[in-house]
């Protein structure tokens, strides 16, 4: 085998190179040549091609993402912002929480189980690298139509993968969402969120500093999996007996990752490691160049020291491999023995592969010959940046003009009753228990609320009851109608969900899933969504701490619905005060908070009943969202309410049904004067919630709402009759609601 060295590259400037097959554009390849002053070696080409890919470099999105920093609201809570493995938020009492959402969409379509499993594994390692103990995961999933054949291939595998990996790591899954839409057929979205906890002093940044410090690779061995387009690198080898066509999807081993988590936490605790970087996309190329460029700027690696699963791998393949469950550590020479003793205790294989230098260069040798010699910043940070053209699509006006006003509406009691039962059984509103029952929500013993609650709530500190709440939301239909408003509506819903549990909203992570950035219409959706989200975060005082961009989610010319998934984290000073979703106590009074308007554009009713998507999404009022959140948080703290549920998809009727179903009680509800029953029951007006108020607290509660001039209407009473009674309209036994709500997924997947 001939190894392509820096020396050889300097002598053979005209040797053809497979830059095109590696996904580089001609001008990008030329830029690499200009940076190096020669042609890149094969290993260098491999590094630049993966690190300059859309996935790693954010080259199409960077110019827009800057707004999250520029418009970031003042926040005392932010300890580490965008740019590190994950953002870190102060929650008080010396505790810090780190959380981030990440996509694994394309791999999950190709191989649903492994794609989803390694999506969970990757985000967990990001959290771990910050020095935090991972304490929970959530998953935000999008699939094609429930009745499509391919959904029956993809969904069970994704669910089993998310569950299999998370369950095996011992991380409770505390929530998420599942949405079905034809645009996600062949483009499923698998966004996984992980949250971790540490003390302030334990925050670690992934920087390679300290000349002479050792670079250590530990965890699973490096194999040939997860090499995108690696067949090209066969050109490096003239030996055609070696395996070609490496699989592009990584294969995970959650047991290895569980051991790696415990091992890393023990390394941090023993203070024998300066920094840890996880190996995710672009493997060693990414870890070495990011560690080096964030630190003193130099690193020398002897690549042949990497422990291999497959000895036939070429240096370029080793650089690009995305084998899972690997970590890179920076260790001082004095601590090396102690470091190795801990990895040995956990039976984690470890190799010292290099050291930090002061040269400003990342130099990689292969058996004594230099195969890469680059400025790490040019690989990790100075990738191409594109100002992609964007333009409001020509169809946007006609889409917005095609409102839901002309759709036939139910009016009689029987029609309203039928509408409720059909909506409860519709794919997007049905119970997701068939999915969430495959996830362990109990492990670690700190789960206070999990699905189907509005947000997941975790206890962080047993002695004080300090805890956090997290919700993920993302409404692609609203965003299709108006991406600026739609992104804000996703933010508003996540914000509302967190506040509904009684938590004070603090910070945001975002998963931005869109079609091709080369389509100006998609790029316009993307730009508008980011502008909306950044403005919204500024108005709500919740900074974006980090996240993920996934582009090219499209088939042919058809892009997915623009899907900005917002993960929002809030804090509860005492999780014992959390407000659950379900009505429980007979006699408590049900209040509807917020204004109800005739808003059905992009609604679940229009979609499920009429297959209609058009018009304008509900109007957004972030000041009202803030006011509502303060009412919910104060009411929780002061013990004024016993249950609360936010109003979103499907409107009030769905929220009422879910609230009585939780504990199997009943409720009597009346339509306020002057409101149309259909609008009252199914409108998706924002900044609304329902609450159950003990009679003893009713005056205090209404006084608080009045003082804030926030609309509150007494709409019903909880009872133990086992019936949801919409007085003067219809009544439904709770058992009938339960059958309608609970049967859809089991009958779709168990048949």
């Amino acid at each position, binding site marked *: 085998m001939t190894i392509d060295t820096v020396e050889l590259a300097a002598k053979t400037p005209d040797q053809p190179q497979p830059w095109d097959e590696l996904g580089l554009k001609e001008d990008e390849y030329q830029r690499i040549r200009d940076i190096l002053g020669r042609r890149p070696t094969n290993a260098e080409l491999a590094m630049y091609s993966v690190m300059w890919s859309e996935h790693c470099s954010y080259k199409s999105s960077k110019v827009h993402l800057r707004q999250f920093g520029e418009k970031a609201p003042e926040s005392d809570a932010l300890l580490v912002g965008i740019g590190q493995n994950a953002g870190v938020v102060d929650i008080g009492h010396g505790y810090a929480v780190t959380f981030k959402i990440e996509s694994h969409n394309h791999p999950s379509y190709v191989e649903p189980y492994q794609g989803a499993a390694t999506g969970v594994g990757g985000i967990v390692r990001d959290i771990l690298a910050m020095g935090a103990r991972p304490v929970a995961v959530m998953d935000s999933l999008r699939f094609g139509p429930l009745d499509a054949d391919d959904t029956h291939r993809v969904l069970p595998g994704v669910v*089993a993968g998310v*569950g*299999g990996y998370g*369950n*095996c*790591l*011992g991380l409770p899954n505390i929530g998420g969402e599942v949405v079905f839409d034809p645009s996600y057929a062949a483009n499923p979205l698998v966004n996984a969120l992980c949250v971790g906890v540490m003390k302030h002093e334990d925050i670690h940044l992934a920087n390679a500093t300290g000349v002479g410090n050792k670079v250590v690779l530990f965890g699973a061995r490096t194999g040939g999996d997860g090499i995108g387009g690696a067949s090209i690198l066969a050109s490096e080898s003239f030996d055609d007996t070696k395996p070609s066509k490496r699989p592009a999807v990584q294969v995970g*081993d959650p*047991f*290895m990752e*569980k*051991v790696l988590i*415990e091992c890393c936490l023990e390394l941090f605790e023993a203070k024998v490691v300066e920094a840890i970087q996880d190996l995710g996309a672009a493997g060693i190329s990414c870890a070495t160049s990011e560690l080096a460029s964030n630190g003193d700027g130099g690193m020398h690696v002897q690549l042949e020291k990497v422990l291999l699963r497959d000895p036939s791998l070429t240096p370029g393949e080793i650089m690009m491999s995305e084998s899972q469950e690997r970590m890179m550590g920076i260790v001082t020479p004095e601590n090396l023995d102690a470091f190795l003793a801990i990895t040995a205790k*956990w*039976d984690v294989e470890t190799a010292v592969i290099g050291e930090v230098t002061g040269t400003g260069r990342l130099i990689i040798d292969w058996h004594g010959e230099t195969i890469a010699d680059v400025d790490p910043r040019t690989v990790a940070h100075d990738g191409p940046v594109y100002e992609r053209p964007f333009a409001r699509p020509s169809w946007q006006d006609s889409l917005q003009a095609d409102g839901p006003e002309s759709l036939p509406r139910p009016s009689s009691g029987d029609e309203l009753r039928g509408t409720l039962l059909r909506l409860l059984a519709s794919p997007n509103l049905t119970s997701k228990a068939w999915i*969430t*029952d*495959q*996830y*362990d*929500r*109990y*492990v*670690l*013993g*700190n*789960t*206070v609320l999990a699905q189907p609650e509005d947000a997941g709530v975790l*206890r962080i500190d047993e002695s004080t009851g300090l805890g956090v709440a997290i919700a993920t939301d993302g409404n692609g239909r609203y965003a299709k109608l108006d991406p600026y408003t739609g992104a804000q509506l996703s933010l508003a819903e996540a914000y509302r969900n967190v506040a509904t549990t009684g938590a004070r909203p603090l910070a945001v992570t975002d998963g931005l899933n869109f079609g091709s950035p080369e389509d100006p219409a998609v790029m316009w959706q993307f730009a508008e969504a980011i502008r909306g989200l950044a403005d919204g975060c500024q108005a709500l005082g919740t900074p974006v701490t980090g996240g993920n961009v996934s582009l090219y989610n499209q088939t042919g010319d058809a892009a997915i619905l623009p899907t900005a998934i917002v993960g929002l984290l809030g804090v509860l000073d005492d*999780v*014992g005060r959390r407000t659950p979703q379900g009505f429980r106590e007979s006699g408590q009074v049900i209040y509807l908070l917020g204004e109800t308007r005739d808003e059905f554009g992009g609604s679940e009713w229009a979609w499920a009943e009429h297959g209609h998507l058009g018009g304008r999404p509900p109007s957004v009022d972030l000041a009202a969202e803030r006011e509502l959140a303060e009412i919910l948080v104060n009411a929780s703290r002061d013990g004024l309410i016993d249950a609360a549920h936010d109003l979103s998809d499907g409107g009030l009727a769905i929220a009422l049904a879910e609230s009585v179903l939780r504990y199997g009680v009943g409720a009597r509800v009346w339509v306020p004067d002057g409101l149309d029953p259909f609008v009252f029951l199914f409108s998706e007006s924002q900044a609304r919630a329902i609450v159950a108020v003990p009679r003893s607290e009713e005056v205090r509660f209404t006084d608080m709402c009045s003082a804030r001039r926030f609309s509150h209407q007494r709409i019903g009473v909880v009872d133990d009759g086992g019936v949801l009674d919409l007085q003067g309209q219809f009544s439904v036994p709770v058992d009938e609601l339960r059958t309608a709500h609970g049967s859809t997924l089991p009958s779709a997947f168990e048949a």
Partner: protein
Amino acid sequence: MRVGVVTFPGSLDDRDAARAVRVAGGEAVALWHGDADLRGVDAVVLPGGFSYGDYLRCGAIARFAPVMERVVDAARGGLPVLGICNGFQILCESHLLPGALIRNDHRKFVCRDQPLRVESAATAWTSGYAAGQEIVIPLKNGEGGYVADQRTLDELEGEGRVVVRYLGDNPNGSYRDIAGVANARGNVVGLMPHPEHAVEALTGPGTDGLGFFTSVLEGLVRA
């Protein structure tokens, strides 16, 4: 009273088991799979999770752990031992309990609040319950189907060694709805559901699981 909780590589519910011991009023002592040392504890819990990855068969490798040699010897001498989920699988693989756990009949992992009936209060871990008492504690497993040959099952039933039984839908295909069994002496109990996840009302479906831990602590005080 000191109750040891063993951590194998891949154990997941070891912290929860230790918390349950503390909530019940005991002292939890961490035991390490690689140490053939029980550190003088008065009882042992083998927690849930995936010991050594369970690539071969759940619990099949864990039975060979250095700590298990001591656990097996001590259990034969009467030391109270509770195996939860993976711990139950390890006890079966170690032949401290009869039968085996196989993949759930519906082939999926299941996590739910599971109603159970305590069939026997004559064990070290259930003496605080009344026989026939109905309780709800979380169940979460992928390989929780309890199987044994007919003679063994008849023997278990005849000797009152079925400790807990599933109520309602059988969640995993376990023979005769068996959720947990004991050895003849009653000091060794294994069950698939997780009593350690039902010791605080805030984080569990209730506190019905606490009795497993208070039972053994009270038994030790009496002894």
